[in-house]
């Protein structure tokens, strides 16, 4: 019962905040809604027993990435007139309709195919010698997914250098 209430509350919050993000006139407000959205998603992760991800969500998304957005918005210093110009060839309405249609279709598929939600037995239990969510995740990251992990780290490095290069004044 508690989980049900929690889930629906969170869902409403998440979706509502997402809508606000997309519709807010003021970019800074939009960012703030985004942060709250992320915090709610983090809570959702806690419900799903992924505490580490929840913390990472807050730390990286809310504390890092979105701060970047905020700084950029402050640097470009906009006050709502960003969307003044509209290209006449835009297909916004079609896009909106299509997105709605796809959502409906997907929801339909999901709802109607939800009959068999019997907990699928975990395909072989991951043989990790450690206990606990965080430890297990760490174990997976540094054993089976070591190469993707390293690739991700290289990606971050490249992104960092690229961002520095892009944002430099002299270039």
């Amino acid at each position, binding site marked *: 019962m508690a989980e049900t209430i929690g889930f629906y509350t969170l869902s409403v919050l998440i979706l509502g905040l997402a809508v606000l993000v997309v519709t807010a006139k003021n970019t*800074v407000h939009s960012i*703030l809604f985004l*942060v709250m959205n992320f915090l709610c998603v983090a809570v959702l992760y806690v419900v799903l027993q992924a505490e580490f991800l929840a913390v990472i969500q*807050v*730390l990286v998304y*809310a*504390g890092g990435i979105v*701060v970047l957005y905020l700084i950029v918005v*402050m640097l470009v210093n906009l006050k709502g007139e960003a969307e003044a110009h509209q290209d006449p060839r835009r297909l916004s309405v079609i896009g909106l309709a299509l997105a709605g249609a796809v959502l409906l279709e997907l929801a339909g598929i999901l709802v109607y195919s939800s009959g068999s939600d019997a907990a699928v037995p975990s395909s072989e239990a991951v043989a990790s010698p450690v206990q606990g*969510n965080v430890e297990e995740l760490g174990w997976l990251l540094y054993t089976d997914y070591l190469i993707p992990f390293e690739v991700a780290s290289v990606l971050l490095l490249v992104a960092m250098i690229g961002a520095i290069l892009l944002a430099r004044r002299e270039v």
Partner: protein
Amino acid sequence: MIDTIVIPLLKIAVLVNGVLVAVTFTVLMERKVIAWAQSRLGPMRVGPYGILQAIVDPIKLILKEDITPAKADKWMFTLAPILSLVPALVVFAVVPFGGDELFYVTDINVGLLFIIAVTSIGVYGIILAGWASNSKYPLLASLRASAQLISYEIAVTMTLVSVILTAGTLSMIGIVEAQQEAGFWFFFVQPVAFVLVLIGGLAETNRAPFDMPEAEQELTGGFHTEYSGMRFSMFFLAEYANMLVISAVVVVLFWGGWLRPFPNVAALSFLDFIPSWVWFFGKMFGFLYLFIWIRATLPRYRYDQLMRLGWKILIPIAIGNIVVTAVVKVLL
């Protein structure tokens, strides 16, 4: 029901109020200590030796007129101090003030990460305050602050990794217990990390000598230039609460939390009569004193020097510390 809801709520209430009261007295302590450092007396009028100043100050702030600048973004302007204060208070949820269950609200297995994550939210308060004020100095200050916080957060987090490596857990209580098992405070095995966390903590809390965002001589008060009254006092509270957080975290990570010195040495067991929370608050007090002392003594860094210190010195040292710790850990 009582165990799951009432007791925690009670604890939270006590904790929040305790922190707020502690903050007011920290402010008093700062005024006194700095005054002594400058060979003067500090507040003396209100109560004996000015002790009641701690109560009068917040009352004064609360009673002051709360001005919202005409061209400010009013919502944000109000939200910013709250965003700044709340994370600072939330963090205390995982700080163990003593060994007994009575002395902490909760123990989560990612406690340290939780602290880092939540404190990283605090930057929004500062940025939004600067932005919402719609004024140049606060904007400059909040840009400085956000850059400073982000860069020093990296350094501190990197440093904490080596502590986590040493302790083998992310839980705050687990870390203290690891020190109990090891028989020594982690300060003795991670002195470099301690210094780094201390410096990084000073920078993250915008304390001198890293108080650029609110350097009154340069930016006339920084991001809270336009604030007054209650909303200003919230920033004020947040800053000092963050100071408490940093002290508490440093105590837990490096100074054995509530443990007495050398918890394994039986010869010192006569010290056990002192309750654990006394140890904890004693150590915390020591660090608060240190922060104030530093503020009284040192000039202020320049902004670029600050960033250079963070990026070019602290982060490399932190990484080196991680490597050394990992190697030692593997070898032992």
